[in-house]
């Protein structure tokens, strides 16, 4: 069971790295706009597809 004395601090380090990565992402504006990036897929085309999947879902 003494492996736990290594694993738990290791887990803490990983949490620290995860938090640091999240802070970096927030700081660089990754979370400022959560809506429109999904639409940029469409704006690359001259014309977006005629029947988007969303409409079909709504009709059901």
């Amino acid at each position, binding site marked *: 069971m003494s492996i*736990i*004395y290594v694993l738990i601090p290791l887990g803490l380090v990983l949490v620290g790295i995860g938090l640091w990565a999240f802070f970096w992402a927030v700081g660089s504006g990754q979370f*400022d706009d959560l809506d*429109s990036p999904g639409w940029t897929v*469409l*704006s690359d085309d001259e014309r*977006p597809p005629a029947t988007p999947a969303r409409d079909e879902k709504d009709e059901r």
Partner: protein
Amino acid sequence: MTGAGPPCFHCGEPIPAGTIIRARLAGREEPMCCHGCKAVAEFIAGAGLDDYYKYRDAAAARADEAYRPDRWSAYDRADLVERLSRPEPNGARSITVLLEGLRCAACSWLADRALHLQSGVLDVSVNPATARARFVWDPAKVRLGDLLRVLEHVGLRPHPLAGEPAGQLSTLERRTALKRLAVAGFGMMQVMMFAVPLYIGESSGMEAGIRELLRLVSMLIAVPVALYAGWPFYVGAWQAIRARGISMDVPVSIAIALAFFASVWNALRGHGEVYFDSVTMFVFFLSLGRYVEMIARHRAGSVADALARLAPVTARRVRGGTVEDVQAVELAVGDELLVRTGEVFAADGAVLEGDGRVDESMLTGESTAIVKAPGAPVHAGTQNLGVPLRVRVAAVAGDTVLSGIVMLLERAQAQRPRLARAADRAAAWFLGRILLGAAAVFAIWCFVDPSRAFPATLAVLVVTCPCALSLAMPAAIAAATAELARRGVLVAQSDALEVLARATHVLWDKTGTLTRGLIRVEEVRPLADVPDSECLRLAVALERMSEHPIAKAFLASDQGAVTASDLVIVPGQGVEGRVEQRRLRIGSPDFAAGLSDIASAPAWLAGESWVCLGDRSGLLAAFRLTDQLRPEASHCVAELARLGLASEIASGDEEAAVARIAERIGIGRHAARLRPEQKLARLEALQAAGAVVVAVGDGINDAPLLRGADVAVAMGRGSALAHTSADLILVRDSLDELPDTVQLARRTQRVIRQNLAWSIVYNVAALPLAAFGFVPPWLAAIGMSLSSVAVVLNAMRLSRTPRNRSGRNWTLSRPAEVA
């Protein structure tokens, strides 16, 4: 009144009866409510952007009928572009604009595509959350004015924001909140992971070293959660205490601090309970609630945005006989301005030359334009609808009436009567109950075993506080907020729901709230042997060229068939012209009758808002113009009355118009011709008499009223300034949801009471048992989780309610609440 046909294809508003405007889009004829919407829809289709209509999830803003492209030409000037934009590499420039009418992701797609189709645009980024677009363009290839014009063409009116810092305040606030939330979330998960083995180890035995390690590591993780993530609560509590008040933050901070320091103490000395799991969970759920609330608040907009929309950036100064474009900030008292038709006044002043008509609805709420003769005062932010005016500047910047309203608003906000009162009640309620319970436990333990009195009391405080506070209230409020958002009601202040449940009065604004804020021809009364439709056709022909707001009422039924010639506009009277070889006049009754030899107009035409059409043989017809009543208004008022809320109108409009609306809706009390401060006084009088007042408004003139009210409700199409003052925003711009919202608020309060009762009963029952050793810790842990789950599930019932849209016949089964 409104027809029962389909709504406008573009903006989704009902189409007034008799209006036949159609736009051809993708081979289909689509109904439109006005020519503004038609122009926008056709432009969107013409630019190949008509897929916007498939993707959007909210109807577009109603296009401004009096739409004038030349207002953007001022933005072609180099020095103005220099001031508004920032330099980019290779001679390009970037600018940030606020887009009015940006409602959903499809709108931002539309703005993005519309700009990208222009040559010379290098980069575009649109943020629908803040309604801002930033684009980079090459001034050598395309002019800024043209780009702004394109945006207005697609129905998104741009407002360039000068000198807005890159790291905006609201963005910073959101980022910080997100970081705190992440720390609390990660911390909670980690601590939970260590808490489970600790609970299990308690019953089945655990190596002392491992137990020690788990407790110390939990503490290590809980430190940033309690200190960093919990920081806003301590700041809030400190501010409340310094202001000699008590807010929700105070008991929250006490609970966090007590539980945290007791746990740290126990963890360091190696025995006793640790509550790190409770602390982190508590902080996480509270932060989550605050975060959701903050997002809603940001969507509602800010005062700075609102002012950016109102105050024009440029003005035309007359100096030495020449007219020069200057920036509004350069104006000084005594300057002479030329304000053309459709432009917004940049400063307060007095008319020097010209008989103008000014739309002051943003200040007074009055729907009809005010006639301005030389010498009459005009105000910054109002719009010139008539002939070009020369104006002598009397007040600039902070001295204008507009600034006065903003200051009034800030004062009302600083006092924040409703927030303080609501929080007072909540805090007193909780603190009282919890302290009472703890005191009782302490007293009992003093008799039984004084040595265990302190730990037992602490246990009661620590365990009841987080459980009752962290889940019972926030879970119910979060569920109610989410449900309301689905119904199109945005909750910007979560404690508004608590107050709304207790509300006794509703104070209504008239224009734009009970009515649509658009003048329409309500009744055509023929006075000669000419059919209605013929009279309307002639009236439309005469009024088509006019800028007068009354003319807009006729243009709604424009079918574009006939035109008038030899038009003469008589200020304050009406229009004379020739239609199909007939000389006709439209305007005030006496003016219209003046073309014939017959005496003056019948007496019944005086007083009410009648407009007459006449020719050489006498009067042909009289038109009654009214601001169109919202179709759902009277139902809403009746429904609220059934829920026990008394209605009252406080309007800036004329007495006769207010009285008629009040009568038609069935509101007994009304007050007309009120200025913003008088509305606020009326509200304060009601509050002084003990009423809990809901204010519903849409205009800038309502903003102080909304700020002062116990619960403020703003219409979705209302001004941004009204939105910033509001607790609830009716996004769909319909009053239908208001009674349902009151009912949901009351049900939320019931659920909160049930949850609190359950938490208290559970804790009261379980704690002594655990303390006496009847309940093994693992069972207590399971019981605790099940208790939390029960509370959350009970709260979730709020979001599972069937919508009561069809609930016109739905009766409230609790008459006791009505009384």
